[in-house]
């Protein structure tokens, strides 16, 4: 099988061509709103039914995140979904169908990383062909708790695991909250970047515009999208 046959595909609402397995991409947008929605959607709005999805959620509790996922994908089967909830609000497994692990503080990157690894292994075993999409929402939030060296190592370890398992990684970053050196350093972790901005012009039906950088066979320039 060629690598392109393994590529991760997206719902037709997203103007993004398939992305090669093993890749990690940054979704970058100011103030997050539509960038967050896009990043989340890239993880759950798959055209393939049997893939697993795994989130590291820094600001939204697992319940809120799951609700948001169901907004764009109403019939979502959460049984192949994992969430590392780093918000500090442990509500237990409750009635959520997803597998949830809690980390009490965002500064505990070791804890987040190990729980991520363990949950990834379990999803890898249950998802068809070991296909798992990972969403880190958001990298910028972690940056407020740890220094750049630790964050770089964390992001790169994650992207290495995704690469070795043939997964897809989506990491959300708000470029306006970081210095250029931070963005340049962290960007080395990603294979490409999807920039998101507000939709400019007519068409209230659009949620924003995106532009893909650094990935093969993607649309040129800014393209509007709606979720």
């Amino acid at each position, binding site marked *: 099988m060629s690598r392109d046959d393994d590529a991760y595909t997206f719902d037709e609402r997203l103007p993004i061509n398939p992305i090669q397995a093993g890749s990690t991409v940054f979704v970058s947008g100011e103030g997050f709103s539509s960038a967050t929605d896009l990043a989340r959607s890239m993880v759950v709005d798959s055209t393939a039914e049997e893939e697993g999805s795994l989130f590291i959620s820094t600001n939204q509790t697992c319940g809120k995140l799951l609700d948001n996922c169901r907004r764009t994908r109403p019939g979502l089967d959460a049984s192949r979904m994992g969430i590392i909830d780093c918000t500090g609000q442990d509500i237990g497994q409750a009635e959520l169908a997803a597998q949830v692990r809690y980390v009490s503080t965002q500064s505990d990157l*070791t804890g987040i990383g190990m729980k991520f*690894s*363990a949950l990834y292994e379990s999803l890898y*075993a249950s998802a068809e062909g070991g296909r798992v999409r990972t969403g880190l929402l958001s990298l910028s939030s972690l940056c407020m708790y740890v220094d*750049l060296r630790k964050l770089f190592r964390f992001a*790169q*370890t994650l992207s290495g695991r995704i690469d070795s*398992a043939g997964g897809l990684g989506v990491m959300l970053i708000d470029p306006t909250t970081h210095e250029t050196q931070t963005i340049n*350093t962290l960007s080395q972790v990603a294979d490409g970047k999807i920039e998101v901005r507000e939709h400019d012009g007519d068409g209230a039906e659009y949620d924003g515009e995106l532009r893909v950088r650094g990935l093969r066979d993607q649309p040129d320039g800014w393209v509007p999208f709606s979720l």
Partner: protein
Amino acid sequence: MSHRVVCVDSNDEALEATVEHLQSELGGFDAGFETAGTVAAAEELLTAETDAVVTEYSLPDGTGIELIAAARERCPDAGCILYTDTDPETIDTTELDGSITEYVGKGSLFGQERLAKLLRTTIESSTQRSYPLPQNEAERLANLEAYDLDDEELMASLNRTTELAAAHFDVPRASVNIIGEHSQDFLACYGGAENWDSMDREESICTFTILESDNVMAIEDVTKDPRFESRSESLVGMGIRAYMGANLVTDSGLVIGSLCIYDESPRPFSPADEAFLRTLAELAMDFIEMHTRARTTGETEGDR
């Protein structure tokens, strides 16, 4: 280049099985395995050249986490993987203070297969390093090996270059630094820099300079730069508050190190400053190229 992997498990049979499996799964991947059954014995095996540590969590004289903490000191660039049945929910990670370690469940369905793949990626892509590598790192290191840098005459020329740099910028310290696989070595120094020892690459500023596409990097104040602020106290202690480095670019276009100047107070650098240091770095590289060429020619003639 052979990769050094330290495997640790107190159960001899399990340890043997893990190593055998990794050897067969990794096939053509050139890896040498060293084994230990305790934290103490494993620590003895750690060197700056260790590429990866694969360890059980529960060990007779401590935990895998303690061993990984020691590895972070001894070989900060190495990749660490806990390969264990212990539930990650029960593992106290605070001792690692945010350092990352990978986790693979021994009993998990794809445990052994995943361990081999993960170990390979961890080593090949250096995923647990705390700083980015140039895209042509392997080529860069191979190129670096081709240079003969251990010579008094060459040192004298490079020392004069650092003196010239320090005088021009009116700073107390300057140096020519070589960036090796895991460390930064000071090849030639001026002023207070003469007392500096080689340092881990993750501690060095120049490891970022060698990534610069325009081959020069200026930092007005290290305490305000997100890449260095967390260790700015030790930098300032060395007399490094402001920094400018220009790359030593070989004839093949690869970067082996930088010529740097250091000031004790914050200061801005102009494009003209950057251009001047870049020219001096070219001069330093010319010395290195000429010396290596002369040495190679001499050896060839000596063989005749």
